[in-house]
């Protein structure tokens, strides 16, 4: 137990049928911590244990409060834990109106309304659900239901918000409708969140820290930008999705060609124009498959983004044509997925200088972190 005011300390070890969970990690009580991994890796089980809905042997401390310590037979019942829990399906109470749903947790928060950090009117305004208050839950759209569910969780005055794939059941347009609300929530309320997801784009856009899980075990954790560089994430991510996240600064816009120029540790990148002021920071995702390598600075090609770097590591995948090359850009790392034949032909080896070529098109809109400043 860290006993740290500003940390959550999680450790669970136990079996559920044929599934074994054995994880331990800490997270700061600010920002968004993502539990990331394929379905069946145990991320939802961890969240249920944190909410007290499931009791696996282990320890859980939130700040100075101990919610569970199996060695001392301490287990706080779910209704005594100040968490907000948001599920994939909104699970609104069908017998209550939107207002009734929102007030359900508010009335049970154990605090007087004047002491509430999150006031009814503020939360309603923040989530834009004012016009829905008098309605029943059956007529709401998927996005509206999820916003009401988030509002209901917030109004129970939680110390910590647990989100179990809150966007997974929504189509991509509705997702884009909800994500800005989550970002606003983060910016204005400073509500710490543990966010379960199997969607890389979502994690890249929202999370500050990430815990990567596979088969009930933690395989990596840390700030999202550094964890992504590690090659051993491959067991959790299929090759098409492998990549890195870079924190960059907006330098200027080229309105004639509709491009935005970004600075990354002195090197320039161009992406299709985004609506962000020069000087602001944002995070971009570069997939390994969109990065190709050259041993001299290339000329006469259409690719605009050429980054100079030094090869840090090469991992050849035995029995396949593929190899992953890790290129140090002087501060950050990009990954490139190339063939083993190219590695041999270009005589690539750790320590060699290379040029990483990134197609502009690789900066897809979803991977742009439009709402949050970078972690630095």
């Amino acid at each position, binding site marked *: 137990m860290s006993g740290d005011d500003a940390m959550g300390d999680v450790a669970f070890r136990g079996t559920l049928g044929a599934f074994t969970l054995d994880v331990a990690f800490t997270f700061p009580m600010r920002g968004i911590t993502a539990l990331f991994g394929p379905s069946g890796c145990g991320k939802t089980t961890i969240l249920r244990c944190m*909410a007290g809905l499931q009791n696996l042997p282990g320890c859980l401390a939130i700040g100075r409060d101990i919610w569970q310590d199996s060695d001392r037979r301490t287990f706080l019942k*779910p209704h*005594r834990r*100040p968490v907000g829990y948001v599920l994939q*399906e909104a699970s609104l109470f*069908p*017998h209550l109106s939107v207002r009734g749903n929102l007030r*359900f947790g508010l009335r049970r928060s*154990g605090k007087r309304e004047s002491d509430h950090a999150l006031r009814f009117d503020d939360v309603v305004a923040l989530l834009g659900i004012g016009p829905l208050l008098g309605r029943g839950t059956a007529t709401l759209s998927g996005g509206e239901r999820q916003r009401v569910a988030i509002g209901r969780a917030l109004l*129970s005055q939680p110390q910590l918000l647990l989100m179990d794939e809150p966007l997974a059941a929504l189509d991509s347009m509705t997702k884009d409708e909800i994500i800005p609300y989550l970002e606003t929530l983060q910016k204005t309320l400073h509500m710490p969140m543990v966010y379960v997801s199997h969607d890389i784009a979502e994690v890249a856009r929202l999370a500050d820290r990430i815990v990567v899980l596979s088969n009930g075990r933690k395989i990596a954790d840390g700030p999202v930008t550094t964890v992504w560089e590690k090659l051993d994430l491959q067991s959790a991510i299929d090759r098409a999705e492998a990549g890195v996240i870079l924190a960059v600064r907006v330098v200027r816009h080229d309105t004639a060609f509709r491009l935005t120029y970004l600075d990354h540790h002195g090197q320039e990148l161009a992406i299709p124009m985004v609506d962000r002021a020069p000087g602001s920071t944002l995070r971009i995702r570069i997939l390994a498959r969109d990065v190709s390598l050259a041993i001299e600075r290339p000329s006469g090609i259409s690719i605009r983004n050429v980054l100079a770097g030094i090869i840090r590591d090469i991992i050849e995948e035995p029995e396949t044509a593929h190899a992953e090359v890790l290129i140090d850009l002087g501060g950050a790392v990009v990954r490139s997925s190339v063939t083993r034949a190219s590695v041999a032909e270009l005589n690539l080896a750790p320590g060699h200088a290379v040029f990483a070529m990134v197609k502009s098109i690789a900066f897809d809109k979803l991977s742009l972190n439009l709402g949050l400043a970078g972690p630095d």
Partner: protein
Amino acid sequence: MLEGSDIWPPVRLTLQLAATTTVVLLILGTPIAWWLARSRQRWKEGVAAVVALPLVLPPTVIGFYLLLALGPDGPGGWVAGLFGGRSLAFTFEGLVIGSVVYSMPFVVQPIRNAFEAFGDRPLEVAATLRATPWDRFWTVAVPLARPGFLTAAVLGFAHTVGEFGVVLMIGGNIPDETKVLSVAIYDYVETLQWAQAHILAVGMLVFSFLVIVAVMTVDRRLKRGGS
């Protein structure tokens, strides 16, 4: 054409018996249904079978055992002794006890089904919103199971109105005390008073039809996702 005094006492008594039985059944049946729906005990299906037994047992068999239990030498007689009586058999109170046993499955089953239909999810959500178990039961489980309670109340009431075998065994035929509708009809037929029998029988027919319509309406609303 007929003086009402003959016909109305059994009707009044029947409605009184059915109403009392329904209230007692809802009070006793709800916790049983809740336990059957939520418990993970392996022997709960044994309890469920005991509750369901009146569905298949001949009413006369139930009536026979109830007669022994309620009589002067059974526990019913002991209870009656506390209030200065000799036996619960052939009393209104005895009829209520018999009706509760006999109609129990018709009340427990719909409520249990309703409790099972909405699953763990709403209760877990309520728990994360700080609702205690008692609070969750009253503010989430009961409202969500409302159609089940309606069906249970209607079936429990109607089944009590219609019972005959058990009543005959433990209630006998005492006017204003145990002479209920079904027994009165039997009586009229025995004594060849066909007109009176007709009036009561038609009344029961209409009543039964309305009950079926009511249950079906509730069922349909339940399937459409409630209110």
